[in-house]
């Protein structure tokens, strides 16, 4: 009974989070002494999956784009076809959308925000809870088990395989929802997919001062984010609000500029690996939660940081 992973792609390229799901799925398959199958939509060239431990890929052509119910139904059919009883998904907005529907369809237990490999006998996983203020070991008691893997929790692990590919033509159910319009910035990395996030708070004084934040993000190939009051004041769009009541951040590098580090802010960004804080106030609570800190005025430090990083990038590329 193989492990099944749902591999997401965008413009026919696999997302990093998807390759992380493959790496994790491989490790689960090894623990359970079984093979790893994947289901992929609308992507012809799947050869990259052979680098991350996938033994068999089912390719599905579905020209209508993402639809949670339809995709959940296709993944359920793939699971039945493969007799898979462990299914692994990412933490993307789409995966979180379809996972509960998939769980009901397969009568499976679903645990999101998982950060480690499962233990077996009994089968349990470790997930974050209370907005990253704790971990919770959770048993999955159903026969079929669905794991939602936290971004950046496991990393990419290469594992070459001889990948088999098979065209899969499941029954496609009709949908009760239609997409009217998609607005997506194509030139910007999203907070969910970003390796680095540059985030700024009320210390920036006003929306007109965000140029340097965007430039810093640009130099680092980072996504931009902000604290809650900044989005409530309309300085930045709500989609940039991170924290307990906004988006979670689990990037490799999180740079916080002019953010005090309130408990609700920290809860949402704590899973980031390395945190840098730039703040004029040496008593700002963020300094207790960060790895590197600079006490200084953002309006002086950030322009210098941009210049130095440009030089660094020029020397290291």
């Amino acid at each position, binding site marked *: 009974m193989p492990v099944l992973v749902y591999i997401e792609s965008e413009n026919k390229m696999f997302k990093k989070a998807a390759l992380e799901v493959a790496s994790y799925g491989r490790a689960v398959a090894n623990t359970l002494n079984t093979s790893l199958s994947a289901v992929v939509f609308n992507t012809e060239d799947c050869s990259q999956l052979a680098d991350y431990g996938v033994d068999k890929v089912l390719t599905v052509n579905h020209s209508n784009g993402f639809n949670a119910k339809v995709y959940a139904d296709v993944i359920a059919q793939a699971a039945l076809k493969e007799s898979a009883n462990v299914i692994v998904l990412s933490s993307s907005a789409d995966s979180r959308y379809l996972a509960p529907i998939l769980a009901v*369809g397969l009568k499976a237990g679903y645990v999101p925000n998982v950060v480690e490999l499962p233990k077996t006998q009994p089968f349990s996983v470790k997930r974050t809870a209370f*907005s990253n203020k704790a971990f919770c070991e959770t048993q999955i008691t159903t026969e079929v088990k669905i794991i939602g893997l936290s971004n950046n929790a496991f990393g990419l692990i290469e594992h070459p395989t001889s990948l088999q590919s098979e065209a899969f033509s499941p029954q496609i159910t009709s949908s009760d929802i239609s997409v009217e319009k998609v607005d997506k910035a194509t030139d910007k990395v999203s907070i969910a997919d970003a390796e680095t996030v540059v985030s700024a708070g009320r210390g920036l004084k006003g929306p007109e001062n965000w140029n340097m934040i965007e430039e810093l993000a640009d130099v680092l190939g980072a996504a931009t984010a902000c604290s809650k009051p900044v989005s409530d004041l309309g300085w930045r769009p709500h989609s940039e609000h991170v924290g307990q009541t906004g988006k979670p951040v689990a990037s490799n590098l999180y740079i916080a500029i002019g953010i005090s580090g309130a408990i609700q802010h920290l809860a949402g960004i704590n899973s980031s690996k390395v945190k840098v804080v730039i703040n004029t106030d040496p008593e700002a609570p963020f300094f207790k939660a960060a790895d590197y800190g600079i006490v200084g005025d953002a309006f002086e430090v950030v322009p210098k940081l941009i210049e130095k990083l440009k030089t660094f990038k020029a020397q290291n590329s």
Partner: protein
Amino acid sequence: MKILVCISHVPDTTSKINFTNDNTAFDTNGVQFVINPNDEFGLTRAMWFKEKQNATVDVVNVGGPETESTLRKALAIGADAAFRINTTPTDGYAVAKELSKVAVDGNYDLIIAGRESIDYNGGMVPGMMAAELGASFVNNCISLEIDGTNATAVREIDGGKETLSSTLPLVIGGQKGLVEESDLKIPNMRGIMMARKKPLTVLEPAQQQTCTSSVKFEKPAPKGAIKMVDADNIDELIDLLHNEAKVI
């Protein structure tokens, strides 16, 4: 239009999180409980439908008697009636099953839940309810308009948003954007007085069916000390990020 808003009773965002019974249970000692923030945005949007489109708005929670204060607050904000399903929530599926039963029995057109509750962050109850009910479903919903039986909703996606259309019945997983922070209402005295007279019906749970169980909690390991870098020595920061942390 009949709207059901699912209300999760969660620790206030400033709560210190601790565990008891050998780390197997959440320690509620000294913890303030509130309406789950994502649910409050949904409830406030429901109030808009009540005012502008004559909707009736009921609220429901799965939980013990201690959650009634949270339901009363929802009534004080303006909901018409409340239901409490008298059982301790154990896993997302069990909660979704209980809520679905209330939704079917009350024949609701629109079911508003939060994208996730800030205690267990499961984010599965709305989707599971939609699947149980065979209703349409929009997650991460940041805008919702209803015209007759047609719904137009906007969903936040990674790096953007998507506008969707469907028909009722509809389940949403809502969040900020449904209304703005400044639209949230603090109940006034009149609302609080009226809430005391509104019906709060206690229902007994159906057969509990769970798929997962939380067995043990643990707090993150304490953080190592921060390294401070002088504001005039940005080169050192770049060196640390490159050679020590290896993130650039």
